[in-house]
């Protein structure tokens, strides 16, 4: 009898643990969606609404289209975003990358930018990723203050090289994408 009890007890605990983990996971994901995803969707929807319903977007879109529909244009975009002075300012929350990405998405949807430029564009809008967060990220890794002093400029300078390089790699990998 005791062994059966112990067995049932173990099963009960096991199931309880799994259900608890799943429930907690569900709570975390709903939290994430309500706190981060939905507000951003509302914000992006408003911007798209303004862009589509008024003519404001056309001016920006013309320039973006010019930049985003050729490799040199995308390279120029990535170099601008990777400038060590600008990149920490463009980084926070990836808001700039998300807005520019959405604008380019609208243009791709309207057929102004060929769809195979989507892949290099994903990297061209984002060479500044995390440039605002270097000291915090390094502190999370328990780095010494001297490491932070070296790390901030090292990452910023590295982006000047790797930002455009990423666009070129993505461009090479976009061959055969949506052209069939």
């Amino acid at each position, binding site marked *: 009898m005791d062994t059966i009890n112990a067995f049932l007890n173990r099963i009960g605990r096991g199931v309880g643990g799994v259900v608890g983990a799943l429930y907690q996971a569900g709570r975390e994901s709903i939290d994430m969606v309500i706190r981060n995803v939905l507000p951003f969707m509302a914000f992006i929807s408003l911007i798209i609404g303004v862009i589509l319903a008024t003519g404001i977007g056309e001016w920006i879109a013309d320039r973006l289209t010019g930049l985003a529909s050729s490799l040199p244009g995308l390279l120029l975009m990535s170099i601008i975003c990777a400038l060590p002075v600008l990149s920490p300012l463009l980084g926070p929350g990836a808001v700039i990358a998300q807005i520019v990405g959405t604008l380019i998405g*609208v243009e*791709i*949807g309207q057929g102004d930018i060929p769809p195979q430029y989507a892949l290099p564009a994903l990297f061209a809008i984002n060479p500044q*990723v995390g440039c605002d967060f270097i000291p915090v990220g390094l502190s999370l890794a328990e780095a010494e203050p001297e490491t932070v002093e070296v790390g901030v400029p090292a*990452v910023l300078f590295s982006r000047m090289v790797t930002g455009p390089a990423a666009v070129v790699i993505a461009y090479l990998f976009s061959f055969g*994408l949506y052209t069939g």
Partner: protein
Amino acid sequence: MADLSLFAGAPPVAGINETLGQWAENFIGVFRQGAETFVGLVVGIIPLLIILLTAVHALIKMIGPERIDRVGEMAGRPGLQYYPIRYLVLPVLAVFFLTNPMCYTMGRFLPERDKPAFYDSAVSFVHPPLGLFPHVNAGELFVWAGIAAGITTLGLPIGDLAVRYFYVGLIVIFMRGIVTETISRIMFARRARGDEEPEVTAPAAPEGT
């Protein structure tokens, strides 16, 4: 609408109320357009995102983040063969299991000189998996989803783009790790040299600070 102007043949002049009505119509049209977009996004993305987030969060809880720590300890070793572990395996595991921004804590197992490069590598990987694993950075989903929406509008499949974004992301973070490590090594060396030479014109420390 009947032409109410008094002079037949004259161009129809809209009354003040009609003009106002037209403005109101245009004004609300902006938000109506936005609302349509919003419904599309919520219905199209949120349900799948919630289920996927739940599954991955549950998986992470069952595996336990402490097991991934062991990989971190191994990645800190010197030697050429540990480069791919340090700037490819470790950032990918950290981003997938710990997600943004907790993934950067994985850098604590690495020696000081590699921490900036690991950060660069890890932070560059918080967007490329978004097409396949949106849980890694759901709050910044639109870096991916904005451009992907255009592809969907054209009626093209986004799967191919998502997979390629992931692969190119892998190459890019490896490259960033190596480049940033090289740059930070040079800067560390220069700093160490500077420390050895006694600074002749060292500014006097301000008192009271």
